[in-house]
């Protein structure tokens, strides 16, 4: 716990983390070391982990090319005899009156909009906790951090009842509002702010006559950019991954997330066996582009974590 609460950053080290130097590898791998510490053996171990990681993704990649009977026959790790990607994708977007497109749109709203709002809220709050003095500050902060430890799903059902009282269930708000609050984002933002924004810079902006809000947007937010990107990515993945909340809040098919939609299809396979193909193709169509998008982003992600003091 000490470290969750500790926002003081360690003294900046001479070398930047994340910039992986070549390291003294050649020397370490000299012949006196046991066989299992040789480069080849260690690389082989990592390769095993890599194959384990890739297997399901490769299966998915092959599965998109297949027809329904092919999904149930033959080797999962070989491509289809034909190439049915285009047919599959077309069917995916036309089945059930084009519901899948609607689900994708919903998910994009929840994930992109929710993550943006969550990031702005967290960054502003973290910055305020770091740069302002006010009464009971550390107590308020401890309260927020305690929120990190509350299992999300434990709040969902009481939240549903509150939303029902406010007649908000089965609206986009019922999913959107809970998703824009992330106490962990505040923790990251505070740590990042205390490391990245020199107090003198804020003083300078204030002396120039800028109000607090303007100072935040023109100085604070700008410097916290990389940290904000990390929070955005964390929240985006968190929302994209969240299944329980929409399951509880929504019964209207038109408001579903992709995950929820795929789940419904998967549960209805006995009525329509072709849903199996739709589930597989839907998984691929939403996941594979995102995977490709995140490969270049992953570097920023890591840099933000390193700077943010998750140590």
């Amino acid at each position: 716990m000490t470290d969750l609460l500790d926002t003081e950053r360690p003294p900046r080290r001479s070398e930047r983390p994340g910039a992986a130097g070549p390291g003294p590898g050649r020397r370490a791998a000299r012949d006196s070391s046991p066989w299992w510490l040789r480069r080849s053996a260690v690389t082989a171990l990592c390769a095993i982990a890599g194959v384990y990681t890739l297997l399901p993704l490769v299966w998915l990649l092959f599965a998109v090319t297949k027809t329904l009977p092919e999904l149930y026959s033959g080797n999962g790790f070989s491509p289809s005899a034909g190439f049915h990607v285009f047919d599959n994708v077309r069917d995916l977007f036309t089945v059930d009156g084009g519901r899948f497109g609607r689900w994708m749109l919903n998910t994009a709203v929840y994930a992109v909009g929710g993550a943006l709002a969550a990031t702005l809220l967290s960054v502003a709050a973290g910055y305020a906790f770091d740069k302002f003095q006010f009464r009971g500050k550390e107590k308020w902060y401890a309260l927020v951090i305690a929120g990190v430890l509350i299992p999300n799903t434990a709040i969902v059902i009481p939240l549903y009842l509150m939303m029902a009282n406010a007649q908000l269930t089965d609206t986009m708000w019922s999913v959107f509002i809970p998703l824009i609050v992330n106490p962990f984002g505040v923790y990251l933002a505070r740590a990042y702010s205390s490391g990245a924004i020199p107090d003198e810079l804020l003083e300078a902006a204030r002396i120039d006559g800028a109000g607090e809000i303007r100072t935040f947007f023109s100085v604070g937010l700008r410097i916290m950019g990389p940290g904000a990107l990390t929070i955005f990515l964390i929240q985006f993945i968190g929302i994209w991954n969240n299944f329980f909340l929409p399951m509880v809040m929504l019964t209207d098919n038109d408001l579903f997330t992709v995950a929820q939609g795929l789940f419904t299809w998967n549960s209805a396979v006995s009525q329509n066996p072709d849903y199996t193909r739709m589930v597989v193709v839907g998984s691929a169509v939403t996941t594979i582009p995102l995977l490709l998008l995140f490969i270049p982003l992953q570097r920023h992600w890591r840099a933000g974590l390193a700077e943010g003091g998750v140590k």
Partner: protein
Amino acid sequence: MASSTTPSRSRSRIRRQRRNGVLLLLGPFFLLFLLTYLVPLCYAVGLSFFREQFSGIGWDGPRLVFAWFDNYTRALTDSAFLSGVGRVLLYGLIYVPLLIVLAITLALLLDSALTYGRRFFQTLLFLPHIVPGLIASLIWLYLYTPGLSPIVDFFSWFGWNVDFLDDGILLSMVNIAVWGALGFNIVLIFVGLQAVPKSTVDAARIDGAGELRIAFHVKLPQVLPTVFVATLFTIIGSLQLYTEPMILRTSGESPIDNAWTPNMLAYTSAFNSNDYHYAATVSVLIALLAGVLSFLVTRFANRRAMR
């Protein structure tokens, strides 16, 4: 008020500005935090102390009665709840150490400069983090299903008939969760390892420490706080087990019922039996369990740090 007017007025102006700044920057988050965290939690606690009672023939509809700890005694004697908690704890007992040990090992290997293509492996292992748990579970369900799964076929070549969806179903869920979370935790620990000063490592090497000693006695102690945070989050996550069993139970004859984990029980009580009070009680108990486990892990970590 008015001895030295100008400075004091501007000071109070600054103070007011600061206060407004705090209110505007922190206010929105805090208001939403109250509404989506603290109020629902208190509301759940409140609900858990009431129950609905039908009086007479029940024509008047249910009546709200203060139930003291009745809902809690009911949960703590409810075999569905207890076995759900047991399953989740067993799942966590396997999943958490397995994930953390694997993540530490691979992060140390990737940091040791003993591996070719470190960056490549990191990116590769990180990929499942982007696949949501539901889709990961769907894919693995196919890879577990006899007749579809090349993995089952592979094992049966060697005359080993594994059934991923029966007795070993808990392990099958652990596998899905490890697959999804491993890369993220590796990167988290790796980032910590990269911050270990090179001079410390070099000094140990000059003193004649081997790669293993350096890994476990020089580098690992420096990233223990990260490992601690990762462990805490993984424990809290494992208590919320929901997605994997919900998917795996769609396979034919699954041993999973609709109250297989506490979360599933809460959902079923709320939406199948309309017993919101019991659902809230289960939610509160999950939060309490998370609190107790966080406390224990923190105590343990602090004690280790003291020594």
